[in-house]
């Protein structure tokens, strides 16, 4: 709760440092009277503390305000975009886990061999290539040259493939690196050595004894990453014209739509807090040592 209160103050003040939004909603050359009328309409003519008081009292009542640009309730806008963001995040997460975990395990098991090197290159590219560039290359290749996939928009499974890949690659690389290092730690531990000495098959050692414990930090990261995917897909959603929260935030920032920026930041913050809590609970479920420590 304290985090959310601090977040509300910070974002309220920060967006107002970016300047007068009415300038962007009219043509340069608009009359002073028009600008003042618009400021009055948005409540920007009132002192800052009055604006903040109104913002907080509305927030408590569940009213996140009206968008300056769309002139519709922000909560309505947010909720209309949330399903698309969740869909994209889940698809990107599935992709990142399906690619990241197996390649991480193989890289750890075949450490310093060809598979490991290939995995490192994959991770390096995933972490260093900007997602907008990856997105544009995907559009160029799969939409324009091959004509296999739609270039943008949403609505079908085909629309989801490229944005999920562009968003998920970075996270696949992160999951691969973490799985690899976590597996290396576990594979070097005493109980894994003992399992091998007992003559257990290698697949059982890796699959049952090593992988389950190595999974804990990966799952923790994946939980947080899922929220991050929902909230930071700004660039990917813009490139692919994907109708999610990231694009809503981009539009909010571009038009200085204070209520939209405030609401998306606060709701995204709330999402981070809730998911962190859920991950902590899940962590305890997976790792008995945490339960017993309590």
């Amino acid at each position, binding site marked *: 709760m304290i985090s959310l209160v601090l977040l509300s103050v910070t974002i309220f003040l920060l967006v107002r440092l*970016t*300047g*007068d*939004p009415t*300038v*962007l*909603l*009219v*043509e*340069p*050359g*608009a*009359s*002073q*009277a*028009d600008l003042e*009328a*618009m400021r009055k309409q948005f409540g920007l003519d009132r002192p800052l503390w009055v604006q903040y008081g109104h913002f907080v009292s509305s927030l408590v009542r569940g009213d996140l305000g009206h968008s300056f*640009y*769309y*002139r*519709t309730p922000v909560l309505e*806008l947010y909720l*209309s975009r949330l399903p698309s963001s969740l869909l994209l995040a889940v698809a990107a997460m599935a992709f990142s886990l399906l690619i990241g975990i197996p390649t991480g395990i193989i890289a750890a098991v075949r450490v310093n061999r060809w598979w490991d090197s290939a995995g490192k290159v994959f991770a390096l590219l995933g972490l260093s290539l900007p997602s907008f560039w990856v997105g*544009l290359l995907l*559009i*160029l290749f799969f*939409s*324009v040259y091959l*004509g296999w996939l*739609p*270039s*943008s*928009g*949403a609505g079908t499974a085909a629309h989801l493939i490229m944005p999920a890949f562009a968003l998920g690659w970075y996270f696949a690389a992160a999951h691969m690196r973490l799985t690899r290092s976590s597996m290396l730690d576990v594979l070097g531990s005493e109980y894994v050595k003992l399992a091998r000495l007992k003559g257990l098959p290698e697949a059982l050692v890796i699959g049952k004894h090593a992988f389950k414990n190595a999974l804990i930090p990966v799952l923790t990261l994946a939980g947080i990453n899922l929220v991050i995917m929902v909230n930071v897909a700004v660039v990917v959603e*813009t*490139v*692919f*014209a994907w*109708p999610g929260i990231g*694009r*809503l935030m*981009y*539009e909010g920032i571009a*038009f*200085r739509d204070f209520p939209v920026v405030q609401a998306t930041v606060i709701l995204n913050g709330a999402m981070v807090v809730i998911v962190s809590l859920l991950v902590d609970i899940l962590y305890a479920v997976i790792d008995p040592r945490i339960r017993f420590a309590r």
Partner: protein
Amino acid sequence: MASNLRRVGSTVVAVMVAVVLVGLAVGPGAAAPEGQATWGVHIALAPTWFDPAETSGIITPFMVLYAMHDGLVKPMPGQAMAPSLAEAWTASKDGLVYEFALRRNVRFHNGDVMTAEDVKYSFERYRGASASLLKAKVAKVEALDPHRVRFTLRQPWPDFMAFYATPATGAAWIVPKKYVEQVGEEGFKKAPVGAGPYRFVSFKPGVELILEAHEQYWRKPPALKTLVFRTIPDESTRLAALKRGEVDVAYSITGPLAEEVQRSPGLALVPTYFTFTTWLVFTEQWDPKSPWHDRRVRLAANLAIDRAGINQAVYLGLSKLAHSFIPQGMEYFWAPPPYAFDPPRAKRLLAEAGYPNGFDAGELSGDTIYGVAIGEPVANYLQQVGVRVRLRPMERVAFFKEYGEKKLRGIIFSGSGAPGNAPIRLEQYAISGGRYAYGAYPDVDGLYTEQANEMNPRVRQQILHKIQQLIHEKVMFGPVIEPAFLNGVGPRLEVHGLGRIANHAYSAPYEDLRLRVK
């Protein structure tokens, strides 16, 4: 028997004649609308664009207004003020009374017939750009009968029609009073009803708008059944969508991507123009200590700029060169003699003014869009003749804030696409007290006051031309370019509507659009 036969025969002939006449009257355009056209829009679609009362003084909402709504009078192909929902209008000799005769049997999308009450209501409900000005000038609006509306002004105002009947405002675009009162303001935004050629089907804010043909549209039934507007914010993605045939028109394609459109078989690059121009403001020309105080220095700056070169490099030669800060398409525009690109003469002028080695001219401030794209080459050209300026690109909001508060110094790279006419543009930038005027000249101010009270259009035009002539003689500004709005068009549309209406950047009139016959 014979008379019966004659009667039957004459009836058959009458029916045949009637069929032929109806056929001729309806013509080929009366075929049921079919097919779909899709636009890749560069900016987020907003529900405020569905409501003429919210028009904010930018041209963008008219992209949608031309489809969903209709105005009493509006710009149409070949006419700056074409009768639309009003068949005709008159202005009294004293300039105080304007009377509009409404077109009969015009129906809104919900079937309601448009009446004078709707016109009165739409004006009174209007709260967009210049609403306070319009309402201050208009004393009363009366519905004389269902088909006649009278506007009475408080005092003669020669610009009444320029504000009321052009995209300067949306006050003349008519909404159905009964329906708006029934569904309320929020309800109207969610399910707008108008009298335009297309009716609302669905909308996802910022994502997609779908419209369907209104076959009872008074002008003619639209040929296309469905219009889809999709927001695609990224320019490269818009081009990809155009190449794949996902959209038929991609708005705002610039630079190398525009060249790619030109190279692509089946695609066409179509420029449109609206009342947008860019110019330099010499902020220190009223300071006797500044080099800019000397007219020769300001003239040298104008002669140093290769406008054609900038046009070719940035807009593939498709923009218009500007020699006035008033756009060429604006009412009361006066065409000044063009500035030549003449660096040797520019250097001579600087030497005559006492700056043979040039001078440090401080900053050239501009926004991060046009201030960089056009401002940067301008700065380079000025450097070449010895006017040493530093480009200062500023974030758009900060730029206009400082510009309006008169905090910028040196040269400002200015621009405006606000609709209206020459006096409206002059007031903001060249007249004492103007929001962006860093100074003014008494003779220009005096003539401006004179024209504001002149009801004779011919005399008024002479005064406005004289003002622009004085501004040119004083070299008050450094006009650069009227940037074209470049768009990609795919092969499916035979009539895409781009550039058909003067000073309108988008496709229109939508009822004229047609797909190519396969």
